[in-house]
């Protein structure tokens, strides 16, 4: 073995290796299978995800740096990896029927989903700017292609081109900020960087770097004013991909954000906290107000997802161990309710009906009581009504903000939740009160039923018994660089 890398490093990246091999196997099986039996690829993909999840088990309490500080294998990364893999599995289950209807080839589709997941896992584990950037790029390129996967659809093409152009531009800005960080500290490792910046007086160039990185990351989490791409891309992309994009990509970007700012730039905490505070307020408010007028449910959920990025930013601004815990908990809970809501939309998709408009939900209760009940639950959860998981998540976020003396941030958050209830409940009204069955008969498939069942169960169970999740998230938040979390009380 050459210096700089050892056999144990390869053991520590076992989950990534398993996932990579799984992705390559999917690609090979795709060629071997006859064309009409390629639907079976979904099971190969699920097997790869399951194997990766299983390979995470030996790393329950590992806390090491791999390859001289390029990647960290710790509980923080582990928590996010579980979120990504679960989201990927649910996305695959959602896609089975959707791909049949759209007539798209499944091989490359599942391969790209696995590669996007790989990129996310690298992002969550990266404690070096180089690793983080390569992970981000892998995820982003996969999503550019997935967004445009339905080639005959103009909206899908538009989504891909928009996402690609704006995404490439934002990556450039992020990279500019990163290069300034590197230039000023002389290292790309975030933990060494934190030590180099500690005790230094604020440098104007470093402030510029922080602003650029905030802008780059802000694009990825779709925070206002970097959100312009989100509604168009979410609406145009294939629905399962929209779901994965709004859950996986967002969670991975938050993991990257926490790593860069809390591990790498704790000394600049005052500056970036101020920026994120402003971003959180604008993001919540603009997202919710824009969502009020949408008639396309996918577009509405896009704005709602923008608003949720604002809520999650509250936890980052608080910056305490409790705030980070709340951020992790919220991202976990958000994954299930958001994926579930998109699964219902996928269920409404038929060969001749898009099933994305508000009127398609008219009288859904009479046609499919379970789908209507599931959607009701997801909407209440997204709005933050007890006893759903969304309530627990928001409660924890806002109480973390009050804990860190950001009282009015919590007040704005609560006010925004109240506003958001209007458009969430509007869907419920359409499903339950409107008698005329405007929409189509929702086609149920076993895989979609599994998705809805899992999401409903998670939303209910985590709303009633969230304790285990809190403990796990708390343990994960504490494994972050100790300097970042503890010194941030204002």
């Amino acid at each position, binding site marked *: 073995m*050459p*210096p*700089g*890398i050892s056999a144990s*490093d390869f053991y520590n*990246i076992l989950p990534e290796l398993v996932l*990579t091999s799984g*992705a390559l196997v999917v*690609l090979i099986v795709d060629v071997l299978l006859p064309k009409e039996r390629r639907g079976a690829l979904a099971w190969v993909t699920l097997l790869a995800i399951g194997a990766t999840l299983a390979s995470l088990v030996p790393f329950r309490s590992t806390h090491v740096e*791999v*390859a*001289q500080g*390029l*990647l960290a294998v710790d509980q923080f990364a582990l928590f996010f990896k579980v979120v990504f893999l679960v989201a990927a599995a649910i996305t695959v289950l959602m896609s089975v029927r959707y791909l049949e209807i759209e007539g798209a*080839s499944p*091989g*490359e589709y599942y*391969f*790209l989903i696995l*590669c996007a997941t*790989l*990129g996310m896992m*690298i992002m969550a584990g990266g404690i*070096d700017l*180089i*690793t983080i950037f*390569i*992970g981000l*790029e*892998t995820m982003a*390129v*996969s999503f*550019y*292609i997935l967004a*445009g*996967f339905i*080639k005959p659809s103009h909206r899908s093409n538009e989504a*891909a081109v928009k996402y690609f152009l704006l995404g490439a531009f934002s990556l450039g800005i992020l990279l500019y900020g990163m290069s300034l960080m590197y230039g000023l500290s002389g290292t790309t490792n975030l933990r060494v960087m934190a030590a180099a910046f500690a005790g230094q007086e604020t440098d104007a160039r470093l402030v510029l770097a922080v602003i650029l990185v905030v802008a780059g990351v802000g694009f990825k989490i779709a925070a206002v004013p970097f959100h312009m791409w989100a509604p168009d891309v979410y609406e145009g992309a294939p629905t399962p991909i929209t779901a994965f994009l709004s859950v996986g990509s967002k969670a991975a970007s938050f993991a990257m954000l926490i790593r860069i700012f809390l591990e790498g730039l704790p000394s600049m905490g005052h500056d970036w906290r101020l920026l994120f505070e402003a971003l959180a307020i604008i993001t919540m408010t603009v997202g919710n107000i824009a969502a009020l007028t949408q008639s396309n449910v996918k577009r509405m959920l896009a704005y709602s997802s923008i608003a949720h990025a604002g809520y999650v930013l509250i936890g980052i601004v608080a910056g305490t161990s409790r705030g980070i815990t709340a951020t992790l908990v919220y991202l976990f809970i958000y994954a299930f309710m958001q994926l579930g809501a998109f699964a219902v939309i996928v269920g409404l998709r038929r060969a001749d009906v898009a099933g994305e408009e508000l009127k398609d939900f008219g009288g859904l209760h009479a046609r499919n009581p379970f789908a209507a009940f599931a959607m009701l639950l997801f909407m209440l959860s997204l709005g933050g009504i007890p006893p759903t998981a969304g309530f627990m998540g928001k409660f924890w976020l806002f109480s973390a903000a009050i804990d860190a003396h950001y009282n009015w941030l919590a007040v704005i958050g609560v006010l925004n939740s109240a506003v958001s209830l209007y458009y969430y409940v509007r869907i419920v009204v359409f499903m339950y009160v409107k008698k005329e069955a405007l929409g189509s008969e929702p086609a149920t498939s076993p895989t979609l039923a599994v998705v809805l069942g899992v999401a409903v169960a998670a939303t209910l169970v985590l709303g009633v018994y969230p304790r285990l999740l809190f403990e796990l998230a708390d343990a994960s938040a504490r494994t972050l660089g100790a300097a970042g979390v503890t010194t941030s009380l204002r």
Partner: protein
Amino acid sequence: MGEAIAFYFIAACILGFAVLVISTKDTVHSVLFLVLDFLFVAALYVLLGAAFLAAIQILVYAGGIVVLYLFVVMLVNLKRPPEAHSDPHRQTRLGFGMAAAVIVELGAVALYSTGKPVVPLASAATAAIPVSGNTEQVGWLLYTSYLIPFEIASMLLLVAMIGAIVLAKREL
């Protein structure tokens, strides 16, 4: 001092050509300005003592990628104003003269350097860098400390390749 002057000159050229890339109306001109831009970026690498990166920058970006751009631009036949084809100001003689000058220069360099030992260009400036050459250093870092990001980059390239096939092929 000299280094600073060189840096600011090169940086100004990079920015200037970048502006020209997006402000010229003719696509072919835009691509040619891009080549110049890449060449100056390569010069910046030389200034930093990264001769290998500079060579790669010229070979891959200025040489490979931009030539592909040119092919595409000429193949897709963008609607250009007709006068671009019959340019009254076309300096045919000057063009031939410049090409001849380049050939003479190349010949002179070849004549001058035959039979002489190869002297590393930056031998004085890069005394601080240890004995092993630029290429070895890059290779050593890539295959030891940065092996894992390097491997992930291979997956990234695979994704890009598959993506290009997916998007470009009519029937899979």
